[in-house]
């Protein structure tokens, strides 16, 4: 999300407008998405909170859970988003700046409301966390190892982890199975894979080989190269449990 439109980039850069928020929300609802995540990608780098007006409009439209990410820096800001009808809030850069925020949110709203998003880059055979990734000008190294930050976030009260593998994002060559499997081993709450889906088989392998609980994708759905009904019937044929 940027300036009221849905945008998608490649490896977190060169974002292009792909559509209107409400039109896309309705399309994915009707196609059978299980959950939608809305990233207000420039909220944290710009130092502003999430604009709540669209959250309320989305909540009126959607009959499935949805999560709002971007610029949630306080219990108060999270409360506004949840009261507007979101099911969950996702924190990323603000949690890195102030890890205690995760626990404050979990105590106030319950761990089931609190998602921690982790933008992770591969470096020298290890995985490192990136901060302020929504802006090419502000992105920086968070100076934390992914395999340490994920268990810390969980112990502080994260009810779910979304792992965005940045090197794979938007290029559609498949999820980063090795990284996701490594994080799976240290993550005791639901783990959502993000970044890299390009084919139906990529979704099958991320469930089978990385053991994730859910797979998030954007580019393939926005472009229409994969539709949600075809993906779900494919996964069911391959013996993976999905809601149809």
């Amino acid at each position, binding site marked *: 999300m940027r300036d009221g439109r849905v945008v998608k980039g490649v490896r977190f850069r060169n974002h292009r407008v792909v559509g209107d928020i409400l039109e896309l929300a309705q399309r994915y609802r009707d196609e059978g998405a299980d959950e939608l995540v809305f990233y207000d990608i420039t909220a944290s780098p710009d130092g502003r909170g999430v604009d709540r007006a669209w959250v309320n409009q989305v909540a009126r439209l959607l*009959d499935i859970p949805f999560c709002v990410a971007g610029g949630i820096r306080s219990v108060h800001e999270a409360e506004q988003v949840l009261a507007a009808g979101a099911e969950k809030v996702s924190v990323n850069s603000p949690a890195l700046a102030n890890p205690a925020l995760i626990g404050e949110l979990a105590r106030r709203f319950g761990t089931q409301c609190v998602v921690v998003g982790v933008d992770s880059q591969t470096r020298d055979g290890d995985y490192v966390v990136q901060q302020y990734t929504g802006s090419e000008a502000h992105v920086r190294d968070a100076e934390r190892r992914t395999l340490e930050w994920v268990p810390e976030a969980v112990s502080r009260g994260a009810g779910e982890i979304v792992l965005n593998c940045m090197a794979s994002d938007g290029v559609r060559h498949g999820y980063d199975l090795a990284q996701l499997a490594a994080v799976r081993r240290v993550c005791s709450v*639901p783990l959502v894979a993000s970044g890299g889906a390009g084919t139906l088989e990529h979704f099958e392998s991320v469930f089978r080989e990385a053991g994730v609980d859910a797979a998030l994708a954007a580019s393939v759905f926005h472009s229409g190269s994969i539709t949600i009904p075809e993906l779900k019937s494919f996964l069911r044929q391959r013996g993976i449990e999905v809601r149809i």
Partner: protein
Amino acid sequence: MNGTRVVIVDSGGANIASLEFALQRLQVPVTLSADAGEIRAASHVLLPGVGAAGDAMARLRANGLAQVIPRLTQPLLGICLGMQLLFESSAEGDTPCLGILPGRAQRLPPAAGRPVPHMGWNTLQPCAASPLLSGIECGAYAYFVHSYALPLSEATTASCDYGLAFSACVQRANFFGAQFHPERSAQVGARLLRNFLELH
């Protein structure tokens, strides 16, 4: 649905907007109220709930609704914690509840691969005829978010399995309950709400 006056009991939770919007999608006008008179005059009453059982019961006692709700004669649907409050008690803080249905909400036992809270889509197994479940098939998916659950009992009309079977839907006389969130359960949830609003 002429003459339908739906009231959502204002139980002070943060997610009441979602339920209001779900009813608006069904073109049903809805009032949010904690007023005993307004609730008694409703044709249908919805009792939502999030948070802890003790806090929710304290609020219902403080505004006198703990006395009013068990005596209602119109259809009432308790949702999530709202369903648990219909029973005698909850193990959550060892809380006495409304006592309309016999039983006690128990904490779900966590296990490897089954974190608590139970959060996400899971399947319903209808096990008794109930107008609330009309048109909802065995294996239909509903969206759950909860850490406590009611064991199976005579009141159970649909079960769900999360390591152990628990009550996903219950009914006794005019009192109905859904442990999942119909407002977030796509067409299955909309069907359940429509079924409820068609009760007289």
